[in-house]
């Protein structure tokens, strides 16, 4: 299917990630999003402000980050956990190839499980491909990329990647982001909203960052976290099999 070692890594990662029971968790948040949207559309056919609230607030505060968390920590974290990553690393494949391939798979899966449902839900909610729908879709695409870079990095750094990722999402992005405006410049959720808002121009999205800031910071965060992940993977150690 794919060619080259990167492709091999990617296809193994894809099969590994989608084959586990965890795959059921991937689609759940997005499913709920679509369901809620449909129900609300039936209850309030005249689209008022609720689409941008549900799809922006719920979608970008919950569905996007949580799904990206589950997926992003899955593509590498599970293999590090059970040791099977050794089979991958005991080859001359460059560590950057490993990280980037896994990151690409994670980002793509997140796009499928979040960005597409967002678009679908937005189209249902607003009755067509409006600016809101387009903005949300693009914002979710960007968020998929940036979040996955962060979570792949976290899974290289620690075995409790999900817990740490949760800490980041709940304490940093949710809590501090609501009370401390300075924290917003380092919040991936804000980058996604900023990008979404640049197209949708909807104040209900509560986007606090302009599109330029969002894109630049998002790019920096993505590059920096991936670089750190590559460095740490190059120093991967098998420790304490003391038996």
């Amino acid at each position: 299917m794919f060619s080259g070692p990167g492709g091999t890594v990617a296809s193994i990662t894809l099969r590994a990630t989608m084959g586990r029971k965890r795959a059921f968790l991937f689609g759940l948040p997005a499913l709920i999003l679509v369901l809620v949207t449909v129900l609300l559309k039936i209850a309030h056919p005249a689209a008022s402000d609720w689409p941008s609230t549900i799809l922006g607030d719920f979608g970008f505060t919950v569905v996007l980050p949580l799904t990206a968390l589950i997926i992003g920590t899955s593509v590498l974290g599970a293999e590090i956990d059970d040791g099977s990553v050794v089979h991958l690393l005991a080859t001359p494949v460059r560590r950057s190839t490993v990280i980037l391939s896994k990151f690409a798979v994670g980002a793509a899966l997140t796009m499928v499980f979040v960005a597409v449902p967002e678009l679908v839900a937005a189209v249902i909610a607003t009755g067509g491909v409006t600016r809101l729908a387009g903005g949300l879709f693009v914002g979710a695409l960007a968020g998929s990329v940036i979040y996955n870079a962060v979570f792949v990095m976290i899974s290289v750094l620690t075995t409790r990647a999900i817990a740490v990722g949760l800490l980041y999402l709940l304490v940093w992005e949710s809590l501090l982001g609501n009370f401390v405006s300075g924290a917003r410049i380092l919040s991936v959720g804000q980058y996604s909203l900023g990008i979404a808002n640049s197209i949708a121009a909807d104040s209900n999205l509560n986007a606090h960052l302009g599109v330029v800031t969002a894109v630049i910071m998002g790019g920096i965060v993505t590059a920096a976290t991936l670089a750190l992940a590559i460095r740490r993977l190059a120093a991967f150690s098998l420790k304490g099999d003391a038996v």
Partner: protein
Amino acid sequence: MTAIELRNVSRWYGNVVALNDVTMTIGPGVTGLLGPNGAGKSTLLHLVSGFLEPSRGEVTVGGAPSWRNPGVYRRLGLVPERASVYTFLTGQEFVRATARLHQLPDPDRAANRAIGIVEMAEAQHRKISTYSKGMRQRIKVAAALVHDPELLLLDEPFNGMDPRQRLHMMDLLEALGDEGRTILFSSHILEEVERLSGTIQVIVAGRLAASGDFRAIRRLMTSRPHVFLVHTSDDRRIGSALIGSPAVTGVEMTSGGLQVKASDYGAFSRQIAGLTRDQGVQLRALLPEDESLESVFAYLVES
């Protein structure tokens, strides 16, 4: 020739020293790494295979360090002990994927060859989740051999194998060693190492206790002082008779019987029966006290 070299290598975790100033060279042929559990065998293998950084000293494979050097894997194959295999792949897919990761020009052919070497051709199209432990081990070896490496590292390869699988693996490793490859495997079972390797490296408590030809070390071990527990109908009489024998270096009366230290194991064992008969004493029990591997190793470390 690609040799493995360790020079004054130490590895510690905080206060715990896993390997203590180990220097050794490993050349072609089969070398066994022998030692009790917790001695540092896995640590050493991880250091050689580039999955652990030495706290001090140098580890080189064919002249180049193995740490942070993915290129070393072109010449090295690793069969780790605890790493699980991708259970959702078939055996063939796993080996073929490994071949692709090595960027071999003809991955399919290399995979088939490797699978043939480990004799897994019949099972190769089944998912690895259906394999037994021995089969998983063999498919791991196939993946480690797919790129025809000069070096093969195996961490406790016979763990959990039944006798037939063990024999098969031994024959395989012996054949690979005869081809001129450098094979290094670890075990804590004397007999496995004895059968397979010419050279052994004995690791005890992080230190290199002995190295070299197996038979020479065996002789060294048998000529070390032995301790026996002797129980007779008249311990004191036998004790005073024994101390007169040149093969005995020490006699102690303990509550469990007579503890005898013999410097010459062969001479002592020949003498004891005749001695008891001459003294008119009934010999009730003769038990070796320190035949365990650990005490053997301990003796080697002390000397």
